[in-house]
């Protein structure tokens, strides 16, 4: 009997949820340009997807409030999985997507961009950073740096600012992003004024204990530890380095962004950590201040670099659409050809949160200047 009752309760729950889910669907506008978004809203990489989705929503609302060109956004979950991502893409295609803002992560990005290339749907990805995403596909563009570029930029930055002479690297050798950055960093380091003295790796399954890697770095007398990894393992590295009394400089890349908003992490440990990221929420320029304030009001947290990427993607599409004279009743393939022309034209550039004068090459890669940041008193400060 008890089982029966549980069954009834569960059934009621499903039904009431079904009613609830009916609410909150956006109103249809026939002339609006339909923008699809794909990213992980659930699972281990959900932070990135949620940030992009939130910021894109914010940007679309702002643009629609301006009058003129209207956008309609539909953001679908892909759980950071190629198969699910293609499913999400097909769902968006059924919905009538005309431009794709996605995907947020790399592996799904490679699968989806191949589909979008075949279907001729213009794609601008906020943060899928492998060069494989855009390689050989004329209608796929990136807003973020490619992984190899981050590796090269990091090596140059460390060398130019003479941040350290003996470098230790800890990277995730089961992760495309981390390995991509490390490989370029290592090959770029050959003719620089520093030496890589220790290279240690971990995988997602062993990302709980870093004492071995840190000991090796300390034994090799490394004065700077380069961490081309995401912020979750990085926070553990910082905590464990502190516990063993090892205090080198730490240098991260854009995946390190997010460390200050992490729960249960003592942000004092992040003091003095340097990172290369195109966006800093504490920057004093008008655009960033306005964005951070709006985002915080709306979603109750400080936006990270992924949010800024998502925001910029929508605005880049907006600027290009205005320039190309795109209307909501055009077919996706027509929009695609027009947007490609605008994006690759030499006089098209976008000033966004993640960089001034962003321009795109025909290969689809963006060109913008990286910014070095250092964490001081719990906030990012531009590195001099």
């Amino acid at each position, binding site marked *: 009997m008890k089982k029966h009752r549980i069954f009834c309760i569960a059934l009621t729950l*499903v039904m009431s949820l079904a009613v609830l889910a009916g609410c909150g669907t956006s109103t249809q506008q026939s002339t609006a340009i339909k923008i699809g978004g794909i990213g992980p809203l659930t699972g281990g990489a959900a932070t990135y997807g949620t940030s992009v989705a939130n910021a894109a929503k914010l940007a679309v609302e702002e643009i629609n409030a301006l009058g003129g060109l209207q956008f309609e956004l539909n953001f679908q979950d892909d759980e950071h999985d*190629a*198969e699910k991502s293609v499913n999400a893409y097909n769902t968006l295609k059924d919905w009538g997507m005309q431009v794709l803002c996605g995907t947020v992560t790399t592996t799904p990005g490679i699968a989806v961009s191949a589909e979008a290339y075949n279907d001729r749907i213009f794609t601008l990805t906020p943060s899928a950073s492998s060069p*494989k995403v855009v390689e050989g596909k004329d209608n796929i563009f990136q807003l973020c740096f490619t992984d190899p570029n981050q590796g090269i930029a990091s090596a140059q930055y460390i060398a130019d600012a003479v941040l350290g002479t003996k470098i230790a690297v800890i990277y995730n050798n089961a992760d495309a992003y981390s390995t991509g950055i490390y490989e370029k960093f290592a090959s770029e380091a050959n003719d620089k004024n520093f030496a890589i003295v220790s290279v240690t790796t971990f995988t997602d399954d062993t990302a709980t204990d870093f004492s071995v890697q840190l000991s090796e770095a300390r034994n090799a007398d490394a004065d700077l530890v380069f961490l081309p990894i995401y912020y979750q393992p990085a926070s553990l590295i910082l905590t464990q380095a502190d516990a063993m009394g090892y205090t080198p400089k730490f240098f991260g890349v854009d995946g390190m962004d997010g460390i200050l908003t992490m729960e249960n992490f003592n942000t004092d440990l992040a003091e003095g950590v340097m990172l290369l990221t195109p966006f800093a929420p504490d920057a004093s320029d008008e655009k960033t201040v306005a964005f951070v304030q709006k985002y915080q009001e709306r979603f109750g947290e400080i936006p990270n670099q992924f949010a800024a990427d998502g925001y910029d993607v929508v605005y880049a599409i907006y600027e290009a659409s205005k320039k190309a004279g795109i209307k909501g009743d055009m077919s996706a393939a027509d929009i695609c050809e027009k947007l490609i022309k605008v994006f690759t034209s030499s006089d098209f550039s976008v000033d966004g949160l993640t960089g001034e004068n962003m321009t795109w090459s025909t290969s689809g890669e963006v060109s913008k200047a990286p910014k070095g940041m250092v964490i001081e008193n719990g906030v990012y400060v531009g590195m001099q």
Partner: protein
Amino acid sequence: MKKILKLKKDTRKNLITYGMIILAFLIVRFLSASGNISSAFRGQLVPICVYIVMAVSLNLTVGILGELSLGHAGFMSLGAFTGVIAAIILQGSVSNPLRLAIAMVLGAVIAGIAGLVVGVPALRLRGDYLAIVTLAFGEIIKNIINTLYVGIGENGFRISMVNAESLNLGERGTVIMNGPMGAVGIPKLATFASGFILIMVTLFIVLNLQNSRSGRAIMAVRDNRIAAESVGISVTRYKLMAFIISATLAGAAGALYALNFSTVVARKFDFNTSILILVFVVLGGMGNIRGSIIAATVLTVLPELLRAFNNYRMLLYAVILILVMLVSNNEQLKNMTKKFKGFFKIKRPSDLKGGTARE
């Protein structure tokens, strides 16, 4: 019609299973040709076929052989990467359908060999221990593939475990597998028709095995190992047979899966995927092939159908899984279906026992 009713119960049951698959294939083909199918569903056709084959092949190990395997995705992974390598090497030399067939066969063979290598020591273990060994196998495969760099270039086929540069492919070489970045630039060879054929082959193998002398021996080992040994059944041989066939089919499914997407990474085939397939088998009923097919199809399509519910999607999916578990073990509902079946008066006395999950 009378002839069909006269057939043995097992044969009739199998014919219904084949018929169900063929009918589903024809309906989807027809709908697809008349343009009445959404691209969301069309994109899922090949994955559905793959998961059906995975579920049926795992059912051979879990349901028919009665050994818990938690590393089925490992075999899928081996098949997937072998298939990708074969497909890329053969680019331009053979026609696409043949290329897909070769890729699938090679994937199956490699996965089968791995099944033999794992099976010989592992099948000496029983119950939980076998589960742990297969779980470890899946993880080992994942980690090995994560460190493998494979390419083809001026110097021919090269493998390295250091990095992509050490392959020395020359300027016009292609890196097929790039360590943790997985394989990219995979030609999209998989089609719904090939998935259908793979399901039919799988069903043919598994259903015939189940009703053969070997199949009965395998089930005897499952039901009582000591009794089976006492009548002269070689336990190791039959266990290995079921395990290797299961691995082989998973390898073929893996190749088909990989050739449906332009990229595949080793971490896709982790513990979660193994568990997902085990869920298909358990929900469909262990030892019940038709149940596996239905469960794999429904549970693959379901998360996509729930997209309309936005943020409640995964919550609903979990609730539905729990509901299915409760419903399929609910005595009152079982009695109701019994009455329902009695209403149609088809003489199937032993049917009431079949189809329920073994505890």
